[in-house]
Structures are given as C-alpha cells and as structure tokens.
C-alpha cells in the first residue's frame, strides 16, 4: 500500500537523498554534462547523499517542495521523491531577510565543510571517470 504524496519530513531527508542518488544513471553522458558544469553552487545533486541532503534541507527552508511517497505495507520510506522549486519570493521585512540570510549562510558553510571532507569528489568525478 503506497501512501499519497506528502511533504518530506525533515527526518526523512537523508532517505530521500539516498533514493535520488541511487537511481541516477551514472553512465549517462547527459548526466555527466549537466552535473559536471553546474557552477556556482548549489551543486545539484552532488553525488554524495550527504551533499544532496544539504541541498534538500535548504530547499525545505526556502521556497522548495520535496515530495515523497512511502510504501506503508513494507515500511519503506521515500520510495518516490520529487523535488520542486517554487517561485522565488523576496522576503519582506528585516526579520524575513535576516532569516533568509542566516539560513543561506549556515547551508553554505555546511556545504563547504562537506566539500572539504570529500576532497571535492562527488558525482562529477565519479561520472567522468567511467566515460
């Protein structure tokens, strides 16, 4: 029994990342072309589920929508994932702008730490090495 699509709970983001990265066709040249040339960040998806998770967390905290479908019968979560980007709105008021600025700073730093941790190797490197 499959659940209806719903917004991905924060706790399920790592599982959603795992689903997306596991179904990527790493031998597809188009995938390589797209994901090897995305600059500047967000590097989407950056191969490692952890890095994709950061991107999804950021989307959920801004105008993004991460939808998932669970298999309730077999208790498997996030068997289907859709990542939507909504219209970008300019936050009104000082508090809104500060909140957006703070969220972006935190995720940027987090992304950089991950980049250093993986020594810059992500999907791009993995895809290019099989071509």
């Amino acid at each position, binding site marked *: 029994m*499959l659940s*209806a*699509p719903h917004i991905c709970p924060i706790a399920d983001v790592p599982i959603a990342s795992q*689903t*997306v990265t*596991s*179904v*990527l066709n790493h031998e597809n040249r188009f995938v390589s*072309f797209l994901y090897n*040339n995305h600059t500047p960040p967000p590097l*989407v*998806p950056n191969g490692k589920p952890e890095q994709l998770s950061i991107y999804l967390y950021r989307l959920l905290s801004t105008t993004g*929508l991460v*939808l998932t*479908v669970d*298999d309730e019968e077999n208790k498997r979560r996030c*068997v*289907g*994932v*859709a*990542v*939507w*980007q*909504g*219209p*970008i709105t300019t936050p009104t008021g000082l508090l809104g702008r500060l909140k957006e600025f703070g969220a972006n700073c935190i995720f940027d730093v987090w992304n950089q730490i991950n980049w250093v941790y993986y020594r810059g190797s992500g999907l791009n490197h993995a895809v290019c090495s099989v071509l």
Partner: protein
Amino acid sequence: MEAYEKVAKQVRLELLGEGNEKNTWYLHMLAVLPEYQGKGIGKALVNYVTEKVSVFLL
C-alpha cells in the same frame, strides 16, 4: 554549457511567455526506486503540484 543555457532560456521564454518565469514551479528531480516503477508514483508526485499551480516546467 553557455550554448545550453542560451537554448534553455529561449525555450523557457517560448513556453511560458514574457513575465511568467518568476511565477513558475520547476521540477528539479524526480526519482522512483526501480522496484516501484510503473505504479503511478511519478505521476502522483507530478500531479500533486500541477493540479495546484497554473505555471510549471518539467
């Protein structure tokens, strides 16, 4: 990459019309595990948004 972005921008403009780009929902990723494919999961995930908004781009 520049050529790709140029063509993509032109296609977006043709599809959406002038001024609509900022109101558009974009589908960045759609993934369904292989053993669950063919069960309408992808369709449901797309319909969730397309039934609620008027301008979207896959």
